[in-house]
């Protein structure tokens, strides 16, 4: 068992959970919500595309990529904040 006390573990996990929930809210919006309204969005033009089509073909994808890079950085800084990140030589 790694030498990390219980209260640190709990605080770290609470913050990790918070990040997970934020990430999944953004994920939900761009996975489901915008596509539900695709027909209305199509009347808007974005970069020459109908917006509803654009979001499915490209927009949501870009957001997912950025979201995961951001998530990975945030989670690492949470780990460091509570001193539960991996030892440096492993990276």
């Amino acid at each position, binding site marked *: 068992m790694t030498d990390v006390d219980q209260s640190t573990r709990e605080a770290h996990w609470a913050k990790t959970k918070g990040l997970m929930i934020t990430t*999944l809210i953004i994920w939900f919006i761009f996975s489901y919500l915008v596509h539900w309204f*695709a027909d209305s969005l199509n009347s808007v033009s974005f970069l020459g595309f109908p917006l509803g089509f654009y979001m499915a073909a490209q927009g949501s994808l870009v957001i997912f990529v950025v979201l995961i890079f951001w*998530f990975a950085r945030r989670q690492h800084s949470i780990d460091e904040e509570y001193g539960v990140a991996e*030892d440096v030589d492993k990276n």
Partner: protein
Amino acid sequence: MSIIKGDFIDNLPKVYGLYTGGFVVFILLMAILEQAGLGADIIGILFVAFTVVIYAAIGWMSRTMQVDAYYVAGRQVPAVFNGMATAADWMSGASFVAMAGGIYFGGHGYIAFVVGWTGGYVLVASLMAPYLRKFGCYTVPDFIGTRYGGNLARFLAVCVLTLASFTYVTAQINATGTIASRALGLPFEVGVWFGLLGILLCSMLGGMRAVTWTQVAQYIVLIIAYVVPVIWMSNKQGFGIIPQLAYGEAVMRLGELETLHGVGLKPTEAFAGLKALTVPHYEAGTTFEAKWKFVTLVFCMMAGTASLPHILMRYFTTPSVKAARQSVAWSLFFIFLLYFTAPALATFTKLQLLDPNLATSIIGNTIAEVNALEWIQKWSNVGFLVISDSNGDGILQINEFFMKTGIVVLATPEIAGLPYVISGLVAAGGMAAAMSTADGLLLAIANALSHDLYYKIIDPKADTKHRLIVARVLLIVIGACAAYVASMKLTSILGAVAWAFDFAMSGLFFPLVLGVWWKRANRQGAIAGMFFGLLSGTWYLYMVKWGGMDPWLYIDHLRFGIIGASVSLVAMIVVSLATAEPDEETQRMVDEVRIPKGETVLSSTH
């Protein structure tokens, strides 16, 4: 041979840089030979043969007799390279060959696959991959078996994994067979076995280590093969060199052409396996049914992505938990490069065929003119395409032109009049995509059977040599079964692929997620979750597809995972709460999994 040790890892950018350069030189050489009069058939053969030989050579150089090298590539694959390997592992024959065709025929509704197959990685990153990496397992059932304890949980996980991955791998071997038979001029049944031979050469000697380094090589081939024709076509049509950002105009133009050609008219004839275009390109459904179908398909593909063992096990190979997270991001980046190109490809190809202002258009021309085109003759000879003058007016209407979805990618270079070297390149890319996915899947099944079923359940005293021999024998046997099933041509490429996602999410999604995120989840709950999830999902698939039952709430056979996963969640929660909470040791294990620091839960050679 020590080529894949220490300094190989340090030199990865150089090694794959040289490899990419070599591949580009090979393409140029083929282009020169084509100008010099080398036949199209020979170019196709050289492309497929050359790339497969390279993969086999990498597979041979990566051979190993060490357990952790065989199962998890020695856990030293850097995040970016693991990202490329995952992208190749992920993008199957369906992504490469059928996705653009699916968008061509299915329009906005079909793009749900694109959204689902990318957004699933958000779940992989936030809910699963880093924690499974910390756990230190070799296979996905290894996690289930250790977290929940007991052979029954482990065994059920092996069952779900095998069912999902086997459904998927037959489609991949089918795709390698199709491409090999086309490029090498073999009968399909022989092409399938040729494809399998290539796949086994990559994976058998070196397990995960060999598959990792061949998948990186395959990613490089497949992404070049996918993007080059699209950029070329876009340039020809004046949309610039980053067509992905500039095809909005082409999308709008298609809207006009659809009215002109009367897209939506139902064809009056039907040809098995072929389709006529009837769905508008970008218009989204306005009904509840259409919207609901879109989001449910997205959900199934996402939850399936996060449950498919051949993907999850790629993140066991990174050097650290942090690297596992970054690697998910890189995976999606590399996948994105292809997926945001697919809708562009579908758009350009459709424009080529429909726009009367382009020399390549065929709709609205006379039947005699169209039948005289070389690519039409070539693809109709193999039964991939039918021109039928249903109304007898001598003019080709939109509802008289039938084709297989797969040829949108495979025939596009010919449709657009690009040199044959591009067709050869596309064939090599399709082969790379199908082979890399088949490798990952076969290895996932064989590893689960050898590590979890044979070593952990049947013979825990087996020595290393014995275990690795069993793993290899299983790989051959499963590969042969899959090739045999594929040679019977049971389903179209895509139907089977969606099912794999539904099977995986029905049985594994909640047991995996709750294993990390809910300490209270116990053995009985996980067993109930996997068992009832898989059972209800399979029952629903059977009833909707063959049993004549009307789908509930438009949840058809492509979406049966919704039923399976819901039942799995309820069963898992109810049974967990009705039985005793997990013992102290298990709870401590979960605590350990939740922080990156410290040793893995399972030792490095367990």
